[in-house]
């Protein structure tokens, strides 16, 4: 081990190219642990993407695996290829039995730089696997459709398996999927520990996306879902430590095969000082705000529908959508039209990107209408600032809201959300106690400094082979 600890963060579709919750978390993790050298191992769909973050000084190396780039390679030795494919066939047999196989032998047989794109088709054993699965599972569909579906599901796996990971003392995958697989491959090849942090549940998120899209249908849908599940299971099997942000996700990880003794919950944290110092001042009227980007996943349209209901019951109410509007211009236009058709132009305000503290100082209710979340930091920020919240029942939200049905609503249910807001409006005394309790909880458990320090300790412990300290 070198003098300074070298941690390789394995990232897929996030930092440092894409902004968002996970990226922001990674950026802060790197900044808060200046004593650690970080190596970024990113998995990108195309090369030469623009960086969305200025890399901190302790990022010492950045390696980008571009999935769209195909490298032709094939072993000359037929014997060697036979051995590799024997292993692959055995592995698939276990997959079929829904068992997670060990891939140590396979990875050790394949040198970095050897990609299976070609041999998986050209080698007879590989081809037979494709054909057998086609005949067994999809005999009535054109073989060509099956072949190209197989290829698109497997190519990225081959890219990851053939790629040489940078050297590090600890590998830290920030999701399962291809990043998780890259972590597994790195762990086997380099013999170093692997940590996994899942902000959401990768396979579940992908499954939702696949079920929503019209591009993938029928058996191809099942194929993709199976592969994502298997990638998650494989990552769980090989990780030395599996971290989730909240208890619900930890349980889901265990359900999918994560060994319970390796799982740990480390929630996201916020800058306590920044939000605890906000001075609250009551403004005339009743102010409801949603902090988030104007994008479909945040379901701003449900927020507007909720505003329509509330505005009838609480005539003095005002609504604020606080966040960037430029990410999905089409969706933003739809939202503006909805506001207009509900005649809410004087009540509903798109503020654009703002310093949220200004709004936390006077908001009476913080609203969250997302259809998907992991652990929304805005709720923590709101609680710390003294703002109560009404939210959809997604991710860690129920836990944050103490499973109190008064403040929780199913996704896309403006009536129930409006009822939650009305409850807060009608019960100011009750709310005082709840707000104080929420604030105390955030200060105690969600302090960003403590969270990142914990990661520092985990890196040290895992690298020394001592495990981690609770």
């Amino acid at each position, binding site marked *: 081990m070198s003098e300074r600890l070298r941690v390789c963060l394995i990232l897929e579709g996030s930092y440092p190219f894409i902004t968002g919750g996970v990226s922001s978390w990674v950026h802060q993790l790197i900044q808060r642990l200046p004593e650690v050298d970080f190596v970024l191992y990113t998995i990108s769909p195309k090369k030469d993407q623009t960086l969305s973050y200025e890399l901190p000084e302790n990022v010492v190396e950045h390696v980008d695996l571009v999935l769209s780039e195909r490298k*032709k390679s094939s072993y000359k030795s037929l014997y060697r290829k036979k051995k590799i494919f024997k292993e692959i066939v055995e592995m698939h047999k276990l997959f079929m039995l829904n068992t997670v196989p060990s891939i140590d032998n396979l990875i050790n047989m394949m040198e970095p730089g050897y990609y299976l*794109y*070609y041999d998986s*088709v*050209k080698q*007879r054993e590989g*081809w037979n696997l494709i*054909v057998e699965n*086609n*005949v067994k599972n999809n*005999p*009535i*569909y*054109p*073989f*060509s459709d099956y*072949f190209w579906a197989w*290829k698109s599901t497997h190519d990225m796996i081959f890219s990851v398996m053939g790629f040489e990971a940078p050297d590090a003392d600890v590998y830290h995958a920030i999701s399962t999927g291809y990043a998780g697989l890259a972590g597994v491959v790195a762990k086997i090849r380099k013999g170093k520990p692997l940590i996994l942090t899942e902000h959401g549940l990768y396979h579940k998120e992908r499954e939702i996306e696949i079920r929503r899209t019209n591009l993938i249908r029928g058996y191809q849908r099942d194929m993709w879902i199976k592969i994502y599940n298997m990638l998650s299971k494989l990552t769980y099997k090989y990780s030395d430590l599996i971290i989730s942000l909240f208890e619900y996700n930890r349980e889901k990880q265990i359900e999918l095969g994560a060994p319970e003794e390796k799982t740990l919950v480390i929630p996201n944290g916020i800058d306590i000082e920044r939000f605890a110092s906000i001075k609250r001042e009551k403004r005339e009227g009743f102010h409801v705000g949603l902090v988030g980007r104007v994008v479909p996943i945040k379901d701003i349209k449900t927020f507007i529908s909720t505003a329509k209901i509330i505005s009838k019951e609480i005539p003095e109410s005002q609504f604020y959508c606080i966040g960037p509007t430029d990410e999905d211009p089409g969706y933003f236009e739809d939202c503006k039209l909805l506001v207009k058709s509900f005649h809410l132009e004087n009540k509903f305000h798109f503020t654009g990107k703002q310093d949220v503290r200004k709004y936390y100082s006077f908001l009476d209710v913080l609203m969250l209408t997302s259809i998907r979340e992991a652990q929304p930091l805005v709720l923590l920020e709101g609680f710390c600032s003294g703002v109560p919240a009404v939210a959809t029942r997604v991710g860690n939200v129920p836990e944050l809201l103490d499973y109190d049905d008064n403040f929780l609503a199913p996704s896309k249910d403006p009536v129930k959300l409006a009822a939650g807001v009305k409850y807060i409006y009608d019960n100011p005394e009750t709310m005082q106690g709840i707000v104080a309790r929420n604030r105390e909880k955030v200060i105690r458990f969600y302090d960003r400094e403590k969270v990142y320090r914990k990661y520092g300790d985990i890196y040290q412990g895992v690298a020394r082979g001592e495990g981690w300290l609770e």
Partner: protein
Amino acid sequence: MAGIGFELQRVLRKGGIGSFFKVVLAGSIVVAGPWILTILGIFFIGRYAEVAVGVYRNFFTGAIVYCYAFSLIIFGGTHYIFTRYVADLIYMDRNNEAGSALLSFSLLVTFLAVIIGIIAVRWVDLPEGGNNYIYKVSFILLFVFVNLIWLLMIFISLIKQFMAIFILYLVGMVISFLGVRFFGYLYKTGGALLGYAVGQGFIVISLFVLVSFHYRPHGIEFKDLFRYVLKYKFLLFTGVLYYWGMWADKIVFKVAFGKVVPGSFFQIFDYYDIPVYIANLTIIPGMIYYIIVTEIIFYIKLKEFLKGLHENTYDTIQKKKYDMIKSIRYGLREQAIFQGMFTIVIWLLAKGISVEFFGGHFAVGVFRVVLIGVFFHFMLLTLIIYLFYLEYYIYAFISSLVFFGVNFGFSLVIVFNRSLPMLGYSYLLGGFLASVTALGFLLYSVRYVERDLYARQIS
């Protein structure tokens, strides 16, 4: 080439002796244009214009034979790449680019042929009275024209005006014949060669004009062609080795046993050369049968199979594949029977041919051995075309390597042992072993052809 087969089949279906002859003539031109021209040219000129050729007859025939042989030995391999390139352009409906490719490649070949010709004629000096300078210029011109005719042949199979093409060939031959007589009387041997070259030049120019009507060139373009050379290198190597294999025994025996024509590098070895040229003519009917019958049957099955690869279930693909394999087996069997029967008949007539056409001065034994060699050579050619269709270029290359290696190696053994009775056996053995190799590769690999085609698509 399958396009021409369909067209000829259509003509044949009209019925009547006229259609039959039309098909035979057009087929002969397509499968062996310059080859027939060379042999018939030498035969007719030798018989009816010998006086015009002058006293240096060997210089005249040597020039024609060497131009023909070395056009294949040097440039034959490139024809395969060029055919593939042009076929792809025409398949993509980029006809103008196909015309440009012909123009560009013709210019390149002309340039190289002129250089090679200039170098070659440095070692040929016609004795006084033969008009050495005219001879040398005519030699270079003839070498260029023969090379260009090979290239134009690739296109004439695509143009359906077979009668027009046949007439152009015929007119060209008549011009050659008259040219030999006319210029031969004026300028002796040099003039005779000039006259012959003028006729060949007419064929080149008229065919080029005809082709340009259909595939109008719009410029000169080499980049893509060179890209093809890199991409299909085994196709190029196959072509080179196939032609080397075809000529290896002839060249080795000429050098070892032939007589040098004084004042030139020409080696004359009529004892072997004449039976070889005559025996090689027996390929022509087989090739015509191949393009009209065998190739069409296979092509239809291949097309169905390839279409099925994209549209059908795996079981249906397998069924279509085995239908295609059946068509290959059937085609090979039919070709073997057809060519075999033809070979047997000629084998039995060998003595008669010797007496009738050569006054008994003809090596019947060698002829018979070479006849069998031609049979295997023909089977090899058929197998190589199948391998090309399925894009197994590496296997075609290995088979050609065997053809060349065995023929060349065994020819050397014969030369070192000075065993004249063994003449022809190296060609026979090379053809036999190469055919067996190609057959093995074809029958083995075609069973997994769908896998290979998918693998190729992703490589």
